[in-house]
């Protein structure tokens, strides 16, 4: 080869690379916090889900609207008793290192998830699988007793404890992602380091600078790689929302995943159509300690709930239009239809306040004997604004509220120990099903901070859990929800909204109730 030919080929190669990089589509996403890990069994936040959901894929995955569609499994069958799911894996699916993805990888991942030594925070999300809870609690030592079996390399059988209508939704969760058995066994805990990690999703991570960003590039081994249009995704760590908005305006970010509420009006006016504020499967509520006076009296709980003017909180106090909450399960939840509502929902606010005064009087409170209580919330501007507003709404009832804020860790520690009279809480759904919210009021669960307990409610929840017919199940759950609302088990305040800003050049971003937007569905129009 002559010198000229070598030079020509080198130039051609460099030009090719440069032209590729010039056309390589890169997406820059503001992602809030730093991920705890890239190991899907060690994470618990939505910012971590954004990254891991791009680099791993479960048996079932999300479509752009967050509906379940085949992922690593091409199809599945469900037994008549709805307890055994048999998944057929796609042909030719591979890890990013070219190793085939097999049913054994799924068995290995589920067994590791339930192994107490793994200490997976979210292991309980898959307790619907046979023996999962017992293995995770250490009651069963043999991991092969878990109801996940590889029939052969391409067939996986999962047996459940009970019929679970939302099981396919739960399989979209990162706790159900497979793990590369060959790498984890060879590298141990270091399998997840950037230099070792192999993935089976549309992307693979190539760089992680703690406190700055995680970068993923397209995984050519992915079964649908040909339709993945974005070549590189940078997830930026930045918790300062105002700074994130400035960087978006400067073109440094293409997607911002949260912004300061007081900027919503400015965004609507100056960047019309770019702010996506839509209902989100999450609830913001106050719990009342139902085990001690005065909140063990239903009349007191109901009076306080009625006096909360929910209509002004979203539009006026927060400014982002959060929807007033009169039910316990958010509207739009799958397998449910319209949720139940409090009976007094449509009364004029003045009338609600008058009724609330009456109820408090009946309960023995009035000008001579004012109701005094402490309202606790975790330190945050929005929580403070809401707490101040609600305390003011309760003032005309003669209720004297002491506001008390602590950092998040302390707040939830005290809530769990039952050391609150009134406490702020929130719940974002793990999977799209009413039971995820209804469980918050079941007797004895950790999330039931108010310790409200009702035998009939628990019985209905149990009955609903055992019902296979989705329509009947929804009816039973709705009865339970109505019962909790009638008893003012807690004070629902508003349904969360997701708050994204999306640049016009980003195509395929579909608003959905769980705010999950996998990069494989997005593209960039330059």
């Amino acid at each position, binding site marked *: 080869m002559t010198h000229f030919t070598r030079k020509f080929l080198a130039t051609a190669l460099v030009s090719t690379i440069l032209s590729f990089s010039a056309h390589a589509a890169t997406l820059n996403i503001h992602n809030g916090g730093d991920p705890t890990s890239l190991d899907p069994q060690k994470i618990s936040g939505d910012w971590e889900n954004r990254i891991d959901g791009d680099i791993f894929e479960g048996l079932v995955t999300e479509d752009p609207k967050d509906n379940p569609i085949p992922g690593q499994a091409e199809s599945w069958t469900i037994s008549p008793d709805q307890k055994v799911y048999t998944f057929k894996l796609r042909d030719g699916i591979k890890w990013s290192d070219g190793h085939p993805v097999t049913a054994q990888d799924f068995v290995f991942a589920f067994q590791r998830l339930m192994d*107490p*030594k793994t200490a997976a925070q979210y292991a309980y999300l898959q307790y619907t699988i046979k023996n999962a809870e017992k293995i995770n609690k250490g009651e069963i030592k043999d991991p092969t007793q878990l109801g996940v079996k590889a029939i052969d390399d391409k067939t996986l059988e999962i047996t459940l404890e009970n019929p679970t209508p939302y099981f396919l939704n739960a399989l979209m969760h990162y706790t159900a992602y497979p793990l590369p058995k060959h790498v984890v066994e060879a590298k141990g805990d270091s399998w997840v380091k950037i230099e070792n990690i192999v993935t089976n999703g549309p992307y693979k991570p190539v760089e992680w600078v703690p406190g700055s960003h995680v970068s993923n590039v397209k995984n050519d081994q992915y079964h649908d790689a040909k339709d993945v249009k974005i070549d590189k995704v940078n997830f930026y760590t930045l918790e300062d929302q105002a700074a994130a908005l400035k960087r978006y305006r400067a073109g440094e970010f293409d997607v911002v995943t949260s912004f300061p509420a007081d900027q919503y009006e400015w965004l609507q006016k100056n960047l019309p159509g770019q702010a996506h504020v839509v209902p989100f499967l999450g609830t913001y509520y106050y719990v009342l300690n139902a085990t001690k006076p005065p909140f063990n009296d239903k009349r007191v709980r109901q009076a306080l709930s009625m006096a909360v003017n929910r209509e002004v909180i979203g539009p006026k106090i927060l400014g982002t239009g959060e929807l007033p909450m009169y039910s316990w399960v958010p509207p739009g939840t799958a397998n449910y239809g319209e949720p139940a509502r409090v009976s007094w929902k449509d009364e004029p606010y003045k009338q609600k306040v008058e009724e609330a005064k009456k109820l408090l009087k009946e309960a023995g409170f009035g000008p001579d004997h004012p109701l005094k209580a402490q309202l606790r919330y975790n330190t945050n501007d929005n929580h403070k604004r809401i707490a101040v507003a609600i305390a003011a709404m309760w003032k005309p009832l003669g209720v004297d509220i002491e506001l008390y804020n602590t950092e998040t860790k302390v707040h939830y520690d005290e809530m769990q120990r039952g050391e609150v009279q009134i406490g702020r809480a929130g719940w974002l759904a793990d999977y799209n099903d009413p039971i995820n919210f209804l469980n918050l009021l079941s007797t004895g669960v950790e999330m039931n901070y108010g310790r409200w307990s009702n035998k009939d409610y628990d019985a209905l929840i149990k009955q609903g859990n055992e019902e296979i017919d989705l329509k009947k199940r929804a009816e039973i759950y709705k009865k339970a929800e109505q019962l909790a609302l009638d008893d003012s088990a807690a004070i629902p305040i508003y349904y969360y909204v997701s708050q994204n800003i999306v640049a016009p050049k980003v195509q395929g971003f579909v608003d959905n109730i769980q705010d999950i937007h996998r990069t494989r569905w997005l593209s960039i129009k330059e």
Partner: protein
Amino acid sequence: MFGYALRRLLSTIPVLWIAVTVCFFILRLAPGGPFDGERPLPPEVKANLAAHYNLDKPLVEQYLIYVADVMKGDLGPSFANQDFTVTQQIMSGFPYTLTIGGSAFVLATVVGVFIGCLGALYQNRAADYWLGGGLLIGLVMPSFLIAPILQLVFGNTLGWLPVGGWGDGSIKFLILPIIVLTLPHAARISRLMRGSMIEVMSQNFIRTAKAKGIGPRLTVMRHALKPALMPVVSYLGPAASYLLTGSLVVESIFGLPGVGRYFVGAALNRDYGMVLGTVIFYMLLIVVLNLLVDIAYAWLDPKVRMR
């Protein structure tokens, strides 16, 4: 000098040990644990996590395990960033902090000394008012206010500089954070320098130098600068400690991956290992920087060297 430095470093070991011990126990006494949060965990999962991180062992045993690990150079795991050890995270973040903080330190010293000298030599004249007054803005305006203003003006409005991030580490990404970090320290140094220089310039030996016919520039450079720098040098130790341990505000607003945000974030997250790791790191840094200041003092002042 080497023996002196070694003695100084060794004498900090007991102080370091006491600080780590106090921090260790205070952290554990604080309400709320590393795994408390919006989503309460089932007791068995909490127990699994506690066992995984030795948090189920008696506190004294945990302490002994920790001290033994530290003596081996292992600062332990981080709960909030499980793919990296505490040491790896500090080592990953420090170069960024060193770049920004070190540049700000040098710039603040040079600018502060220069403007302080000008202020002293042109006392109560336009240059003194304008330069000193302009720099005072940096002192009275907090960084959480200056930073967004600079982002808005130079990033969003004029489009001259990136609003945040590290990018490829090129100078354009560093300018704004360095300015924000530099301003308050440059202002303090200039005030110190101005006062000190005015005092030195009124000393007899300066009058003698002037009487010998030495020009004003040479008088300042050869005779006044060194003694006038003494109060500035005593301030440089704490300033360097502040700048090289990173700034939570600047790193948060500009989205920089330095070590500044670790300490506060770790304390709020009850990330015990990271809190203790940053305490050890900060203390070692402060010890080394104070030692360098003392050495600089000895170079500037022969009386100190004699002692």
